[in-house]
């Protein structure tokens, strides 16, 4: 049977079946099971109305249970059993085996970098784009162009950026933009300004910003104290910030001292350290539009009076932005951040299509795919899936908590 015809048939059967199910089950309930007439009419109507919600809910709940809830537990079970031994319980052996695999730690490290950089950069660019486009007459047109990559598949984006990172041998003309730009640098004063001074200063200011935030956290912790839990969270936060400051300073030092291979086209995607960032750029390019759309709506929702009052009191544009606007949209920023975080945790297509985890670009989702379908090792594959689930669960708890709070 032709698949297109099969597809049409499925739509008819699926949609018709669903509607038929809903219609006939309601009819059955009202006419046969608890008819709304006779001596017990009132009682029957009540009974029918108690059952009806479940008729409406049943297909969805069944599908959700089977396709999302059950797999969580099944994967948990697979991760502690061994398929080769007929599914015998092996405790944490799979996790141990996974921990012994250097590729896993590489994937975890890269995932952490992705988690730090992609949401931060997308949100920052999105905020910038929202702030800028909201004040020009062709802003909505500009917005839809920046938003456009949202419609492009990760695989399509991978091809687009592979063309940008493309490398040709030294004697041919470069067709990748990145190498074409790279070959413009030859080690003169321009190269010093753009390749050493600019990134160096950027890194130093990033380190300074991280240290400043860490310092203000320390002072608030000194003043307020608070519960042990809050202190612990603060401590972890400060430690992460100090680590960020340290690594950005190291990068700044590298920017000033490293010898650059001028005039030689580089195979960008094979340079460990750099290539992960190049893959992240793809996702940042896609997600910035999303952040921009949401943040722009939030910025427009800020009451005018608060801004006017601040200006009357003599606040400059930076103060207006950081002290008046930012606090009012912080809730939205958190939502954008967590949404992009979820995308990052599941990122698979980009890495799979561009490097397939070679040259130290492995991420958890691709590591898992590798284990499941190439190495056919379901135990370790499921164990790494559980690691992804573990990383997602704080957001899950937070979302559920918020939803519950909202409904009260």
């Amino acid at each position: 049977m032709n698949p297109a015809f099969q597809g049409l048939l499925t739509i008819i059967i699926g949609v018709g079946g669903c509607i038929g199910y809903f219609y006939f089950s309601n009819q059955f309930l009202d006419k046969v099971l608890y008819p709304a007439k006779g001596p017990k009419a009132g009682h029957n109507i009540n009974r029918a109305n108690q059952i009806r919600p479940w008729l409406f809910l049943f297909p969805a709940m069944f599908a959700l249970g089977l396709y999302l809830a059950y797999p969580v537990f099944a994967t948990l079970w697979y991760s502690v059993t061994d398929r080769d031994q007929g599914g015998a319980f092996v405790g944490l052996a799979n996790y141990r085996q996974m921990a012994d695999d250097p590729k896993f730690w590489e994937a975890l490290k890269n995932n952490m970098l992705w988690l730090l950089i992609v949401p931060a950069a997308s949100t920052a660019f999105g905020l910038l784009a929202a702030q800028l486009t909201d004040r020009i007459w062709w802003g909505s047109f500009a917005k839809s162009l920046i938003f456009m990559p949202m419609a492009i598949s990760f695989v399509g984006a991978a091809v687009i950026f592979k063309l940008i990172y493309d490398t040709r041998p030294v004697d041919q003309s470069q067709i990748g933009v990145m190498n074409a730009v790279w070959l413009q640098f030859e080690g003169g004063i321009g190269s010093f300004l753009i390749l050493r001074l600019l990134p160096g200063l950027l890194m130093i200011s990033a380190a300074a910003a991280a240290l400043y935030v860490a310092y203000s956290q320390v002072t608030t912790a000194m003043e307020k104290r608070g519960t042990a839990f809050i202190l612990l969270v603060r401590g972890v936060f400060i430690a992460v910030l100090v680590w960020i400051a340290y690594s950005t300073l190291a990068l700044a030092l590298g920017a000033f001292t490293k010898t650059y291979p001028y005039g030689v086209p580089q195979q960008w995607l094979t340079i460990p350290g750099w290539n992960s960032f190049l893959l992240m750029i793809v996702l940042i390019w896609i997600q910035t539009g999303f952040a921009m759309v949401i943040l722009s709506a939030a910025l427009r929702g800020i009451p005018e009076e608060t801004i006017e009052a601040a200006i009357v009191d003599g606040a400059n544009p930076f103060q207006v932005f950081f002290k008046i606007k930012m606090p009012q949209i912080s809730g939205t920023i958190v939502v954008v951040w967590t949404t992009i975080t979820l995308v990052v945790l599941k990122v698979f297509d980009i890495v799979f299509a561009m490097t397939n985890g070679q040259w130290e670009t492995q991420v958890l989702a691709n590591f898992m795919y590798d284990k499941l379908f190439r190495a056919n090792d379901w135990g370790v594959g499921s164990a790494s899936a559980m690691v992804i689930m573990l990383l997602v669960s704080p957001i899950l708890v937070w979302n559920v908590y918020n939803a519950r709070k909202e409904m009260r």
Partner: protein
Amino acid sequence: MDGMVGSKSSLSWAVNISVVLLVMLWLFPTVGLLVSSFRTTDQISSNGWWQSLFPTEQNVSLRTVDPDEDGVQQLVNGLYTVEGNVFGDTSEAVISVWGVSSRAIDSFGPGDTADLGEGESITVQVDGSYVWTGASELSGRGQRVFATAETPPEFTTDNYRTVLVDGNTTDSMAKAFFNTLTVTIPATIIPIVIAAFAAYALAWMDFPGRSILIALVVGLLVVPLQLALIPLLRLHLGIGIGKGYLGVWLAHTGFGLPLAIYLLRNYMVGLPRDIIENAKVDGATDFQIFTKIILPLSFPALASFAIFQFLWTWNDLLVAKVFLIDATGQTTVMTNQIVELLGTRGGNWEILATAAFVSISVPLVVFFAMQKYLVRGLLAGSVK
């Protein structure tokens, strides 16, 4: 601008320029792909796509017609003469300088005559037409001409023909295109129907455990589908669905449901209570209220989710790879086809760029046509 009356115009210039730069930066990658898909293999490998938009000056090595071919050589005024155009047919290229040896490619200007020795000489005009004469019969291969020529931008739709119409089976996107369509349409429509009923129940029906179910949906919203791969593949293989369209439709339905229920419920809760209560007073059943009142009113939310689900299923690679594509490869989808082309045709950018653009063109059209609903859905789905 917020209260900076004096510096308004200069600041608004700065804002305009930065937005132009930002938009260009964001468009640049996609435009590169689009332009590359209209260039030939030679053009792509000879220079970057950004140079193809303007006339380019290139050094080309050309050759005149082989004088040994029949009828090429004519005796004019006692001289053996070969005439023609170094670019083959007529071309729009403009020659600025040329030469006859690779060591001196800029010895002559257009219209000059180069002495080749032994009584031979050649004259090349600005458009590439040449006259090559010799006192004795010309022989050997054609005379080499090195020219620096400015060629105007040139584009072709041949790549699209190769990829869509008459490509061989490994390059062809036509089948993958229809396969993707076959996956996408049922996988978009079915979850909407199922979710709409559930969303109505969660929004407007009173029953114990409702808030727990809503919380459950919110929780499932973030469960990574990676967890579902193995258990569900086993399930599908176990109950005989195997790998195929039915499996991928079911999988997409399951994975799309949380967002569908969440979006639709949030929208339906906001509908005016009066309408529903009036209808109830008039004796309408829940089923009638749902189909006659709620569904038509919820159209914006339905459209939002439909776009999300369409984009997501069209662009998906992982679910198709796990639940659909079997060893025969007959059911490959476009994303998978592109990944395979990346492996086998890594350097053939004309095929890759065209294939990728075919795959992203449909989502782009949907995106620009229905952006309003997409934005609305995003706002409803994430801003709380």
